[in-house]
């Protein structure tokens, strides 16, 4: 169907290179994907060091300035007006932007998704030459003649693998201070503090008479061990210093230094000539130096999250975490580490969101604001297994209040939850299609009503109750009063103890998901719908394992382990006769998590559906191998919980 709007966009693009090189059908396919964006004067399209957006840009009307900050002032490096293309370098190189882009007047800009263009670059040499020329001449692609492009061609290769996200960046980046403030033992704390003030530093190294380091005093030590203790500042430095100090050699390599600090929870590390505390000091490395050298490490992201209450900033940081994640996955970093880091970041975002929400709504709710509550994550996030920003599942529990206050308190918490959910959505998470979220009145309840809810699921385990149990039993306290969540956990165990038959129903439910392989050992794929001929890795491979781990651990009455592969580790410990099976199941689960997340990156989705044909032979085999423990474990469950004797 001819489309007036697409044609309008196409007719504009056609007038400017590189679009002018495209054939009619190609141009049409590009025009179809365009996003028309409007920026008011003074709006920024992107900032230096931002991660590349999905689009590069061509100015439709108005003008955009590409600027750089030099000594605090922004200097315009390029003026882009109608037909100028910019923002390409960052996209093709998958690197952060190197300039700021700001609308110099109200401007209409067409955003062209790079994914569409990558294909065209491969097919159309003239276009790739055009971009290569832009690469060669520097930062911005502007309208240019093709003549200068020849030499640049070899520069244009596949997007660089170097995404600047190494866990440990090169040593050369590490700047530590070589001017170390020291004092000898025997001088007073007061004098030491004076020296620190003069040099404007937060720490001082205490040395013995031969200038070898023996201890350190920081701002914090003065606060905690002197002022707070009510001591006199005439006392000698050695009486409040932290000792011994950790010393290392400068050329130990960044990762060694970093790990030493992390392992020993150190804020400062002293560099000495030979690495021991029996040699002269050559420098001091603080955790702050490390932060500066680590543009993109988890600690930087976490630190930055702790220092912002700006939702847009939080969203950007979560995007950064996603890139970190893809780096980890591709480099086979251990899954429990990866899952831990990402959960930590997700949890922190929720905590900050709650803080923002409370700051906004508390002033208007003086009577409700001090009610104890606990924000719970459910499902995969509750199990610390949510790597990609898939659906949110969460709930809220608050302490019991007198009946006449209940309505007010509940509406206050619904208000908070709504704010929190909106912030999470703005940070790129997706809403739960079944509405299992804390802003749903059904899932924002006082403790007693939650207990009643869990009891009713346990006492009458119908299909819906069991479905809810699988999601809600994996709750994990994120923020607020954790004892509320614990009270709930204990209630569940008590109830199950009273009604043991529940576990048998729960077991039957755990076996409901269909086996992943058909009779001929081929993948069972979806027969109909959007995902036809694809393999549902979540439903057919991951859920059976997660369900089994939850059930078995529940039957052992173990509290506090939520993560599926850690549950299997615990089970291996509890049931030595099945040790190897459970360890294998845990491993399988890790592999499945990794595959799903990688698929999610590839398809820009949840990664749930995988086309078996798109997997390499090795990967296909790997995936099939993960199924072996599922079968074994299901057999054990069938026998142990006498599932076949249950009436359905």
């Amino acid at each position: 169907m001819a489309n007036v709007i697409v044609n309008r966009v196409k007719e504009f693009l056609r007038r400017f290179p590189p679009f002018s090189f495209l054939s009619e059908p190609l141009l049409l396919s590009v025009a179809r994907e365009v996003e028309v964006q409007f920026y008011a004067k003074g709006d920024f399209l992107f900032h230096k060091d931002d991660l590349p957006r999905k689009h590069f840009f061509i100015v439709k009307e108005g003008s955009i300035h590409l600027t750089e900050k030099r000594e605090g002032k922004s200097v315009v490096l390029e003026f882009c007006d109608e037909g100028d293309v910019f923002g390409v370098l960052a996209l093709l190189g998958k690197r952060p932007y190197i300039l700021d882009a700001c609308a110099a007047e109200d401007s209409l800009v067409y955003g062209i998704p790079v994914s569409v263009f990558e294909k065209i670059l491969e097919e159309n040499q003239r276009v790739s030459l055009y971009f290569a020329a832009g690469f060669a001449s520097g930062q911005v692609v502007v309208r240019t003649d093709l003549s200068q492009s020849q030499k640049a061609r070899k520069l244009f290769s596949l997007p660089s693998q170097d995404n600047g996200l190494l866990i440990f960046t090169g040593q050369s980046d590490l700047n530590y201070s070589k001017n170390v403030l020291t004092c000898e033992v025997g001088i007073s704390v007061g004098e030491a503090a004076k020296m620190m003030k003069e040099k404007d530093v937060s720490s001082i190294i205490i040395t013995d008479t031969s200038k070898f380091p023996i201890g350190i005093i920081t701002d914090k030590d003065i606060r905690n061990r002197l002022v707070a203790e009510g001591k006199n500042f005439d006392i000698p430095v050695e009486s409040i210093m932290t000792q011994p100090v950790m010393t290392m050699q400068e050329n130990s390599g960044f990762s060694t230094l970093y790990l030493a600090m992390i392992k020993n929870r150190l804020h400062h590390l002293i560099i000495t000539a030979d690495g021991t505390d029996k040699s002269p000091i050559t420098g001091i490395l603080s955790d702050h130096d490390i932060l500066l050298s680590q543009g993109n490490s988890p600690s930087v992201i976490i630190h930055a999250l702790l220092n912002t209450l700006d939702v847009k900033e939080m969203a950007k940081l979560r995007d950064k975490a996603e890139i970190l994640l893809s780096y980890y996955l591709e480099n086979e970093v251990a899954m429990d580490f990866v899952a831990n880091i990402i959960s930590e970041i997700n949890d922190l975002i929720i905590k900050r969101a709650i803080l923002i929400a409370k700051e906004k709504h508390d002033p208007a709710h003086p009577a409700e604001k001090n009610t104890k509550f606990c924000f719970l994550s459910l499902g995969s996030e509750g199990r610390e297994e949510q790597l990609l920003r898939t659906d949110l599942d969460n709930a809220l529990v608050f302490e019991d209040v007198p009946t006449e206050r209940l309505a007010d308190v509940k509406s206050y918490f619904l208000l908070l939850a709504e704010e929190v959910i909106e912030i999470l959505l703005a940070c790129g998470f997706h809403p739960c299609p079944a509405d299992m979220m804390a802003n749903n009145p059904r899932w924002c309840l006082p403790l007693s009503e939650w207990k009643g809810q869990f009891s009713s699921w346990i006492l009458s385990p119908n299909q819906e109750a069991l479905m809810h149990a699988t999601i809600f039993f994996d709750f994990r306290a994120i923020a607020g009063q954790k004892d509320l969540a614990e009270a709930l956990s204990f209630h569940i165990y008590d109830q199950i103890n009273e009604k043991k038959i529940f576990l048998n129903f729960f077991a039957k439910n755990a076996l409901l998901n269909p086996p992943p392989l058909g009779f001929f050992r081929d993948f069972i794929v979806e027969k109909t719908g959007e995902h036809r001929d694809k393999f549902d890795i979540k439903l057919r491979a991951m859920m059976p394992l997660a369900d089994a781990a939850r059930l078995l651990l529940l039957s052992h009455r173990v509290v506090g382990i939520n993560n599926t592969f850690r549950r299997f580790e615990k089970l291996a410990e509890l049931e030595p006769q099945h040790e190897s099976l459970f360890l294998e199941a845990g491993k399988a689960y890790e592999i499945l998590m990794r595959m799903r997340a990688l698929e999610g990156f590839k398809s820009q989705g949840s990664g749930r559906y995988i086309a078996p044909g798109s997997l390499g032979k090795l990967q296909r085999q790997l995936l099939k191998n993960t199924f072996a423990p599922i079968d074994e474990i299901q057999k054990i469950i069938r026998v142990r919980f006498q599932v076949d004797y249950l009436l359905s």
Partner: protein
Amino acid sequence: MGFWNLWRREIGPKTAFVSDYEKGFKKRIPNIRAIEHLDFVVLDTETTGLNPAEDFIVSFGAVKVRGYAIQVESALEYYLDTPKKGREAIKVHEILYHYETYPIRDFGRDVLQYLGNSIVVGHHIGFDVAMLEKTFKPFGLSRLQNPILDTLNLAVRLEKGPHYDIRGAKPNEYSLDSICMRYQIPLDDRHTAPGDAFLTAQLLLKLLKLAESKGIRDFEALMR
């Protein structure tokens, strides 16, 4: 009993796609949702005349807006067959007979699915809504449940303040043509439904930015 009696019937039995559409409104849009996270559908219809009771939709164009950006990929247009060929409409739109007309029932199903629970936007949108409601009546729809935003009212509110009486404006001061000219939007493809929808969408982007500068940042403030 010709096929065209369909048009005249009162609200028909509720079809599955109408029920699906209505289910989408179980959850309201939170008042605090920021404008950049709201979904808009900007639409325009061209009709055989100006009386919703007697006239018919000839063509329909729409495009989605989210995050201060128009998603060209989402552009939609339909040409419908009608029992009445309005001489006036033909003169204005120069659509005499479009060879790719679309069955009314499929049109209803597709459009309702496309609208979802987005905010419906248009210039003089009241008329388009009335036309759409009349068209969907036979399939069991009593009224469109989407929040409705009129770019005409929004422009007046932003330019003259919330209490301005539109009757005080000069004739045509707020016609799509003159507003677009005021906001420097080139008048391409005027008087085609998708063309006008695209113009209106560009106008919406500019008005939303203007609104933002006046402190209108969330759903509640926008729809007030």
